[in-house]
């Protein structure tokens, strides 16, 4: 079976501009040569801390921003070669759910109108059929028909995220890129939305790219995980394997840093030191070497290779080469 999505050597640089003529004085390599593939019906999670490039990757996959290099194959077609019009049509199959349900819904439109919009844009159905679909979708995501007449501000955060999810599902997409979909929500609401996402995946055979900084959440939702650091993918494996046996020192440190809701777990050891270096001026060699507890001489000079060290378990670290 060919994967639904294949990403090869994806690259994105943002220029740093200075002065009154906006002269380009440097660049931030936000996404630096990353590759992965996602099978139909699975959830692939991208995790990492702020500035690691996970959200940029998400936007690149839908071409909301344009990459400098690489390929994004969706159902075996490189969408980076698509014309504007063709890309617009292709987005019917690839939708996005955003972090902030307050900012991503038009405050001047009723929920009905917000949900109908994607159908109008993609010219799907008659007015009557569209209304029907809106009502069905409201019920599917756990809202009621009456909610359609209301405006976004009349809903709580959790309900708004349900609306955001409903909007993404309106065009029957195959792939959903969800960028921190539960980060803005309270714990008791977060679990509702995670369960909803799982149910919808089963019901509609959805494929998810789930972008998150929360390793607990990722463990519950994902089948496979890619760990990013300063624009690089440093480790990728099946979720169960990654949590049971993380290989990269960064992944280990990240897992160690998560506070656990159990007072009997002692987590005194701080395995990661210092702070994230500036992405405009990343360290030489392995980008993690400045903070790595197991840093060797070679790590400062040579960039580690992306290697499959066990079946399906990839890591970029000199400890494994």
């Amino acid at each position, binding site marked *: 079976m060919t994967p639904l999505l294949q990403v090869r050597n994806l690259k994105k640089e943002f220029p740093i501009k200075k002065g009154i003529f906006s002269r380009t004085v440097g660049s931030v390599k936000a996404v630096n040569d990353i590759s992965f593939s996602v099978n139909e019906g699975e959830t692939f999670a991208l995790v990492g*801390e*702020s500035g690691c490039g996970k959200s940029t990757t998400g936007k690149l996959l839908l071409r909301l921003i344009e990459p400098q290099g690489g390929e994004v194959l969706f159902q075996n077609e490189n969408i980076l070669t698509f014309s504007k019009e063709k890309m617009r049509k292709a987005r019917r199959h690839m939708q996005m759910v955003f972090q902030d349900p307050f900012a991503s819904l038009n405050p001047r439109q009723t929920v009905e109108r917000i949900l109908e919009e994607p159908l109008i844009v993609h010219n799907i159905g008659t007015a009557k059929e569209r209304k029907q679909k809106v009502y069905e979708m409201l019920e599917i995501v756990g809202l009621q028909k009456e909610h359609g007449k209301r405006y976004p501000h009349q809903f*709580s*955060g*959790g*309900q708004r995220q349900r609306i955001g999810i409903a909007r993404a599902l309106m065009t029957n997409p195959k792939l959903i890129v969800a960028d921190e979909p539960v980060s803005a929500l*309270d*714990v*008791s*609401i*977060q*679990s*509702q939305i*995670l*369960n909803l996402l*799982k149910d919808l995946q089963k019901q509609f055979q959805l494929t998810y790219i789930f972008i998150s*900084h*929360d*390793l*607990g*959440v990722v*463990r*519950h939702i994902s089948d496979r995980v890619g760990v990013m650091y300063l624009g690089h993918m440093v480790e990728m494996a099946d*979720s*169960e394997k990654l*949590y049971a046996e993380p290989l990269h020192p960064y992944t280990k*440190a*990240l*897992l*160690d*840093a*998560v*506070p*656990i*809701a*159990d*007072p*009997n*777990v002692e*987590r*005194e050891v*701080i395995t*990661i030191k210092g*702070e*994230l270096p500036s992405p405009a001026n990343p360290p030489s060699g392995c980008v993690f070497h400045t903070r790595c507890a197991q840093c060797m001489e070679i790590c400062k000079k040579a960039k580690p290779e992306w290697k499959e060290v066990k079946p399906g378990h990839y890591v970029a670290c000199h400890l494994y080469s």
Partner: protein
Amino acid sequence: MERKPILRVEGLQTSFFTDDGEIPAVDNISFQVYPGEILGIVGESGCGKSVTSLSIMGLLPAPQGKIKAGSIFLGDEDLVKASEKRMREIRGNEIAMIFQEPMTSLNPLFKIGNQLMEALRVHKKVSKEEAFQRSVEMLRLVGLPRAEELMNAYPHELSGGMRQRVMIAMALICGPKVLIADEPTTALDVTIQAQILHLMKRLNEKLHTAILLITHDLGVVAQVCQRVIVMYAGKIVEEGDVQTIFQNPKHPYTKGLLQSIPDIRAKKERLFSIPGNVPKPGSIRQGCRFYTRCMFREERCRLEDPPYYELENQHRSRCWLHEKEGKTADDTVVASS
């Protein structure tokens, strides 16, 4: 053991007076902070945890926010009755506070050194030289390298984690009895959060400053606090030491909340979830505040607010389920054991 609390909140009621009428944000809560302990207040958005801390500091947004009733005793002094002048003497000196976003409390126009020294000069009336020395020492204590150089740096030159360290240094420089930390690590990445939490614990052991930690993150509470208070819709629903609350929670809300957390140690097929939405402040004014979302609810819960039951050794919970096992704890004045 006989312990005398340094901070006693008794029957505190704080409301916001808006165009839509009065909105009770904190509804008759009482608790104590003991010397040297780390006490957590945990709850979801709108539960009143931040309003509680602002009430203690006398920093409620005027003119909407008002303390309607109750007392806040720092030692023997009631802060609710204290004048603004007296509060200025207390803030930063006897009670200090750190916030979620350090940039909002650091002045971008002044050097770190000036801001640290100002607190000392105002409250402790020390000489410039001494203020400088003590500021440098404080920066070292919070684990900042090149402390002398940092004295001349502006806040924008520092990373988020370093700023939060500076904030902690500034809060502790006058040796306060109580430090209120309102979501101090929420804006930070998880690896930096681990460093800051570790620092707070270390300083608490070293300086014996009591910390009131306000957070939404039960993981943070479990790792750092000795005791915890759970708030829901303006009321305290449960309190106890962390072992008890995490191993043997009694209130249906606490139970639900703990079960909802995705645990990093094991994958669950389905997460437990509390149905319904987090109530807006003031939207429920009768009966148990958790009634609409509770799976153990009875008709009585809708009409009558449950009393606060003392279950065992300082473990209290506000739920009708405990009617048989617990004795009612007096709501407004809880005697220290």
